[in-house]
């Protein structure tokens, strides 16, 4: 016999199972006296719980609803009261933060007015820190990556003629 489908007994009673599950549980119940008994006991307990819950003392409902209305009104009022100053405080706080940020930016700003100089201009204004020669040939400097063999090219005219070089090699 397969294992007892304990947790499926209540869903079986309440017809919550799929057709396949239901057939399987039914097949088991046909052969298992223990599960049939357990199912009947669970059903009886469920009924008892259901009936007894109905007997639980309940409040006077009109008073309950009156109290609920008052609570709801008080909550709505509290939220409205909170919201109005909240808006004011939020606006004030935002303005304060904005002013603080502006003051910080002004304080951090360099003392010399005007537009910040470009890199080239800055380099020209600080000759002691840059190689003037390089700046004069800035166009070439920009193409340095193309002039990896600059030294060789520069001394091309000093190289001996090709025949001479070949002769030396041979």
């Amino acid at each position: 016999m397969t294992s007892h489908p304990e947790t499926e007994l209540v869903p079986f009673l309440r017809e919550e199972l799929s057709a396949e599950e239901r057939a399987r549980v039914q097949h088991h119940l046909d052969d298992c006296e223990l599960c049939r008994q357990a199912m009947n006991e669970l059903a009886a307990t469920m009924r008892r719980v259901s009936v007894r819950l109905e007997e639980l003392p309940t409040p006077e409902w009109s008073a309950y609803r009156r109290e609920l209305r008052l609570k709801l009104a008080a909550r709505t009022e509290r939220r409205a009261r909170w919201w109005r100053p909240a808006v004011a405080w939020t606006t004030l706080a935002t303005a304060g933060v904005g002013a603080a940020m502006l003051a910080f930016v002004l304080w951090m700003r360099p003392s010399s007015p005007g537009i910040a100089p470009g890199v080239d201009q800055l380099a020209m204004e600080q000759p002691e820190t840059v190689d003037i020669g390089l700046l004069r040939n800035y166009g070439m400097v920009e193409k340095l990556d193309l002039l990896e063999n600059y030294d060789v090219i520069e001394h091309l005219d000093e190289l001996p003629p090709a025949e001479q070089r070949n002769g030396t090699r041979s």
Partner: protein
Amino acid sequence: MAELSDEELCQSVAKGDRQAFELLVERHQARAYRLACSVLGNEAEARDLSQDAFIRLYESAHRFDGRSRFSTWFYRVLVNLCIDYKRRDKWWRKMLPLAGPGDDPDAPGVDPPAPEEGPEVAAMLGQSTGRLREALERISPNQRIAVLLQAQEGLTSREIAEVLKCSEATARVHIHRGLAQLRKLLRDE
């Protein structure tokens, strides 16, 4: 308006319809109160929290998307409030812990712990409803909620799983274990 379904009334509440809200309260007040009472084991707290659940309903009706039944959605709101309350509460009032030993669906079934019998519990003994309440307090909260939702509200295992945020299989385990424990506790009634 009385012929409208809960779901339709909830849509009206979302638009600020107070009459629809009143009607929904009337329809669900007894169930909500009884469920809260059974979960919390205290009438004053149940009254307070069930009302809070209705206030939450009024304020969040627009969040009900209609994918589940209204009752499933509403009981989820209520159960969450009760669970949150018990979580907060246990710090200073040492009430029953939220996660009881029977809450683990993979763990073998265990007998409920012996209750601390105060004067209130003793006064309830001998009364059938009192005995049920006592028995309900002795099973784990998840089992209690699962059994109550099934016995009282007729929710399916799948809907109970939605309320408890667990799998359907786990919800079935909670129902089975809860009922088995209650049967044992109420056997001598």
